């Protein structure tokens, strides 16, 4: 990555971190309902991969820890926050919530709440790309625990069999809800499981964005080059619990501190300071500007936006209801 890009990405990662921390606060204040899964600690994963890919052009899909992936693809943070507030101006018009952020215009194809569910959907999007002949790729971001679902194996088999242009990114944060990977999974290093399907795979440090980026470039080039699927495993850690209802009783504070020593934002910040491309004052200014933006624009937009109308409760259930196609009723034919 060029220095200018690194500085831009640092600013984005600060936004991603602060956005999520602000969600935490809003949840405590009961402005946000339902389940809330936060991303702090894993920022280098999404950012490193998407810097190597083409946000807004490539199709991206993920699980329920989805706010940052949506924003990285180009979704407006204001609309993402409005969605968390359940407002009509939200990215899914208040019908989705935290686990179902969508921005089809930016080719962010959604967050899904069934663990592993997006695997075959991603392969299907890749199938559509293959049929249409475009140069896009499909990128599926999921956690390590999703790999214990049957569709993981079914999808890898089909993706390899049909040489589909899909990149699987495994953000291995070592926990599936509240169970550690050692206690749930016979193979810790997930890329080893993929070898069985003749899919090239790599594992790397998911905290250092330079390392993620270098590995992701190889992965993206492979997939975009028409060579079929690729699996990239990023070793990472989530600072918060699985969701807000999680008190992290299944792991030690010492372990958390060890990971925080290698914080993805601070790693990049310190590298830029060491090379003389950034000062600590400039970084602190970025943090302040970000907080001001979140408070004055993002939160304000969410607070001031209208609720969906109850009369529209069943809007969006059926597409054909809205268009009244002849094949729905036969009457207009």
């Amino acid at each position, binding site marked *: 990555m060029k220095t200018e890009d690194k500085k831009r990405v640092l600013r984005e990662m600060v936004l991603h971190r602060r956005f999520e921390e602000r969600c935490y606060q809003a949840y405590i204040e009961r402005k946000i309902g339902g389940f809330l899964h936060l991303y702090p600690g894993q920022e280098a994963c999404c950012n490193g991969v998407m810097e190597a890919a083409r946000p807004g052009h490539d*199709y991206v*899909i993920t699980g329920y820890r989805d706010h940052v992936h949506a924003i990285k693809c180009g979704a407006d943070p204001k609309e993402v926050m409005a969605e968390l507030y359940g407002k009509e101006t*939200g*990215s*899914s*018009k*208040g*019908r*989705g*919530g935290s686990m*179902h952020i*969508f*921005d*089809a*215009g930016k080719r962010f*194809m*959604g967050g*899904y*709440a*069934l663990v592993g*569910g997006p*695997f*075959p*959907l*991603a*392969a*299907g*999007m*890749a*199938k*559509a*790309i*293959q*049929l*249409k002949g475009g140069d896009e790729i*499909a990128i599926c971001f999921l956690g390590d625990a999703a790999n214990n679902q*049957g*569709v993981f194996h*079914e*999808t890898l*088999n*089909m993706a390899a*069999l*049909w040489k589909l242009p899909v990149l699987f990114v495994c953000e291995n944060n070592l926990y599936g809800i509240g169970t550690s990977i050692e206690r749930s999974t016979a193979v810790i290093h997930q890329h080893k499981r993929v070898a069985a399907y003749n899919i090239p795979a790599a594992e790397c440090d998911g905290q250092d964005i330079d390392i993620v980026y270098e590995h992701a470039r190889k992965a993206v080039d492979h997939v975009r080059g028409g060579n079929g699927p690729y699996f990239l495993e990023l070793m990472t850690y989530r600072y918060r619990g699985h969701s807000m209802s999680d008190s992290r009783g299944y792991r030690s504070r010492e372990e958390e501190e060890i990971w925080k020593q290698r914080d993805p934002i601070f790693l990049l910040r310190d590298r830029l300071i060491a090379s003389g491309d950034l000062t600590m004052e400039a970084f602190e200014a970025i943090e302040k500007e970000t907080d001001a933006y979140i408070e004055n624009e993002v939160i304000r937009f969410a607070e001031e936006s209208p609720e969906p109308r109850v009369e529209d409760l069943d*809007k*969006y*259930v*059926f*597409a*054909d209801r809205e*268009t009244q*196609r*002849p*094949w*729905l*009723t*036969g*009457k207009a*034919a």
Partner: protein
Amino acid sequence: MANIMYWEAIQRAHDEEMARDPLVICMGEDIGVAGGTYKATKGLYEKYGPLRVMDTPISEGGFTGLGIGASFLGVRPVIEIMSVNFAWLAMDQMFNSAAKVRYMSGGQLTAPCVFRSAGGAAHQLGAQHSARMEKVFMGIAGLRVVTPSNPKQAYGLLKSAIRSDDPVFINEHELMYNMKGEVPDSEYFHPLEGSDIARAGTDVTLFGYNISVHWCLKAAEILDKQYGISAEVVDLYSLAPLDREGIRKSVSKTHRAVIAEEDEAPVGVGSEVIAIINEECFFELDAAPVRVHSALVPQPYNHTLEKAAIPDHEDVVKAVLKMFGKV
């Protein structure tokens, strides 16, 4: 009008739609090189090639999800699930992804895919190959469920389902693929919502769908000839949504209703139709509506036991005669 078989009608609908739109594809187990277990995709592999006629591995959850994902980008997959019993493995993707994606994305994504599957008891296929599962599919918001009772519907419903922007589940029947019937020579789209009056009558309405329409028609014939009872037969080809207006109209005319279904009784088309009758036209009734249904047992293998578990036209006749106080 051509007189063709149910499977030929399905094959023709596939062929016409695939010839028209390069984004219509079909996928499933043994549908390509092998031509399909029930021949419904015969000849398509040779004509459209492996990219559009996909022989899938035996991974129902995986390939169903793959088809749904492709549909997000405008591909229109017709996904064959060889037997409806195997659809249990695909339901997560059908229900959680296809049926809900439009709503939970605020209308941004749609899943215009078609799921076709053979359901129903055939001949001694045992507990895990004889299920009727329409009761499971018809209660899912965002999913359309249709079930053809004849070749014309099989052709026209598949044509409409492929054109529909909503996910559609088509419940076929293992015993009906070789049934013959008239299908229009010109292109025909059967409506995805509503019901058909298969036979007009005045004294009692017999509601059926898929194979039970034929029990009802046979029963109506017997009731007319032997007992002088004029039965109307309503074909509920759309199970989701059910045709409230069609149900109300017919019962308001005949004042009596019998619902025949091959499915087991607790929870199903029968209970839903009776609920609709109660809600729409309770005071039009001259008798309590009844349902004719299968026994609540895993389908037995033994021929005699199997026959005892599943109703037929004689059970429909008996139910009507009892309603009229004639037995």
